[in-house]
């Protein structure tokens, strides 16, 4: 009897906590509209990508990608709630319907795209793995790193990329593995290794944690491709299209010179591309199941891609990243969004 009671108690707890959601019953768009907000999975703290600020508000480029989708659907960039996820949980959370989209610094790879029941809806940041070296060792290029000791964070693809790179170059290295990025920097600062390796987007932030940031420099080499972007569940093409085109709208807006500041003014523009993007002409929104002025809401509230980039990771932020390959194709980068028409 007693254990029956405890079981019954446990089940009562479970039953009390159960909330039925209609994630699978309806399309994602319908269920998001019904909930009244977008549920978005982000990292639990990665500078520039998604991190809580001092007021407890989420900031970062991944966070803004979520906000842009919310702006497109509801006309309100604030209609989004964030679920911080660890690297291991992220895909399960999306598969199980706990979140509507995942925007968590996730590299687009073939395996992930085809075997997890997920779709990558684009790339909001082109990253790659790089090196931070102590200036004292006098190395200017990664090919001179033969025999170096390298500080790495455990359990990341960084480790695999590193050994791939050294093997193909016929070089050797001695890995020193740390548990967190904080410890990795401490190890580097304490001189336990000559080189620290991580995604390039993080190297500048890690470098700024050193007591004397000028004692270290970032090598020009990029040893892996890390296209990072938002992910959605497979099998709901409408939702996939929405996320994909929200990102494209932001990139196109930069190309067309539409900004947060001039979004209202641009409504009067007689450029047909601008008119279609802002919804003053055509029915682009309706085709996606969104309001026709969704483009205006995105740019007005979140900004175009350049504004999103500069605000979170750009040269004036603590990360201080130049646009590099993340510039528009017209500026020597590789950002090229299909046209809104």
């Amino acid at each position: 009897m007693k254990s029956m009671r405890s079981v019954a108690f446990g089940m009562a707890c479970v039953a009390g906590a159960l909330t039925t959601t209609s994630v699978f019953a309806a399309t994602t768009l319908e269920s998001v509209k019904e909930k009244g907000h977008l549920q978005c999975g982000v990292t639990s703290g990665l500078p520039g990508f998604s991190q809580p600020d001092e007021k407890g508000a989420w900031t970062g480029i991944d966070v803004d990608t979520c906000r842009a989708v919310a702006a497109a659907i509801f006309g309100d960039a604030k209609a989004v709630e964030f679920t911080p996820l660890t690297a291991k949980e992220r895909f399960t959370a999306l598969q199980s319907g706990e979140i509507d989209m995942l925007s968590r610094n996730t590299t687009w790879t073939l395996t992930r795209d085809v075997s997890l029941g997920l779709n990558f809806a684009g790339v909001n940041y082109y990253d790659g793995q790089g090196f931070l070296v102590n200036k004292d060792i006098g190395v200017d290029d990664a090919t001179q790193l033969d025999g170096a000791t390298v500080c790495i964070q455990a359990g990341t693809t960084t480790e695999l990329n590193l050994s791939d790179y050294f093997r193909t170059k016929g070089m050797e290295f001695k890995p020193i593995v740390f548990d967190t990025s904080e410890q990795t920097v401490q190890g580097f600062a304490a001189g336990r290794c000559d080189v620290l390796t991580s995604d390039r987007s993080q190297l500048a932030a890690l470098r700024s944690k050193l007591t004397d940031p000028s004692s270290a420099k970032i090598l020009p080499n990029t040893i892996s491709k890390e296209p990072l972007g938002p992910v959605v569940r497979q099998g709901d093409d409408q939702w996939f299209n929405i996320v994909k085109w929200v990102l494209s709208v932001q990139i196109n807006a930069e190309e067309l010179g539409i900004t947060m500041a001039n979004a209202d003014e641009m409504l009067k523009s007689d450029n047909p591309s601008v008119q279609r993007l802002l919804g003053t002409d055509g029915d682009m929104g309706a085709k996606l199941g969104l309001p026709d002025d969704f483009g205006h809401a995105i740019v007005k509230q979140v900004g175009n891609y350049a504004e999103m980039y500069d605000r979170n990771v750009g040269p004036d932020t603590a990360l201080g990243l130049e646009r590099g390959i993340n510039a528009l194709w017209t500026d020597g980068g590789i950002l090229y969004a299909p046209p809104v028409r």
Partner: protein
Amino acid sequence: MTEPMMKPPKRNLGPVKWMRTHLFSNWYNSLLTLAVGYLLVTSVGPLLNWLILDATFLGNGPDDCVGAGACWLFVKQRLNFFIYGFYPDELQWRVDVMFALLAVAFVPQFIERFPGRKWLGIFGITGLPIIGYVLIPGGVLGLEEVGSSKWGGLMLTLILAYIGILASLPIGVLLALGRRSDMPIIRGLCVVFIEVWRAVPLITVLFMASVMLPLFLPDGVSFEKLVRALIGITLWQSAYMAEVIRGGLQAIPRGQYEAAGALGLGYWRKMGLVILPQALKLVIPGIVNTFISLFKDTTLVLIIGLFDILGAVQSTIADPAWQNVAIEGYVFVAFCFWVFCFGISRYSQNLERKLDTGHKT
């Protein structure tokens, strides 16, 4: 003839005597004293300098932290986040009310003569959770709803620990009784439950709850990560609790069971009136030990992406705007944990003294 009483020689008096017996009684004790003294002198000064004298308390931002000491400004500026997580500013009064009620219910427990403290204690384990259940998530009585994804910081740590502690004790008692039951099926079920949950690390339980469980649930059914974690923590903790309590049950002499039986008490009254009061009294140190370890184990929810106080601190120390504030952050967390765990421990010592479980007199 009475000799005037002579004072003992100076070396056998006061601090000198005390030092001679306690610090310099023989050559190796003298050596240890000197070594420890040297360590204290060399470490306390720099520690104080870092903690207080050279530390930065005032300022507007990262640029003000230039001294050699700790940058408490960082903790100060992020305090709101460390305590409330993402809970909306304008609704934080609801959490404050809960903090206040928690204090009202439990602080008097330390004051022997506080009037009605027993009732406050009972309120703390009955009314308080109910009020919290309404107030914190909201969504009823015209309160704006705040989803659990917005809970965090110290508040989340306390919620996890409080519910874990509150729920695991009764479940643990039932499991312990079940394990000592004469009915083979009940006993078997309890043994299996306890041995399975106790043999699994909490990290595994949390991972299962956050990563695997959602995949097993039927389509259209999902419940929040926090609730899944709470159920996992509670079940895991109740298995531990059961074994602690079973220890107490086994310490009660057979005569007590037989005497209760001879009075004609049925099973539940025998246990409730005679056996459990004695058994629980005996194992207070063990129970409190388990509570404290649960309180600290709640930090493991960090690995499933919940922002308890440690998670909140860890995510903010990565902020590139602040240089190396990791130590300050961790010291702050350690201090918070120490305050609460020490409080629990003092309370249990009070309780033991009152119930005289040590049988010292």
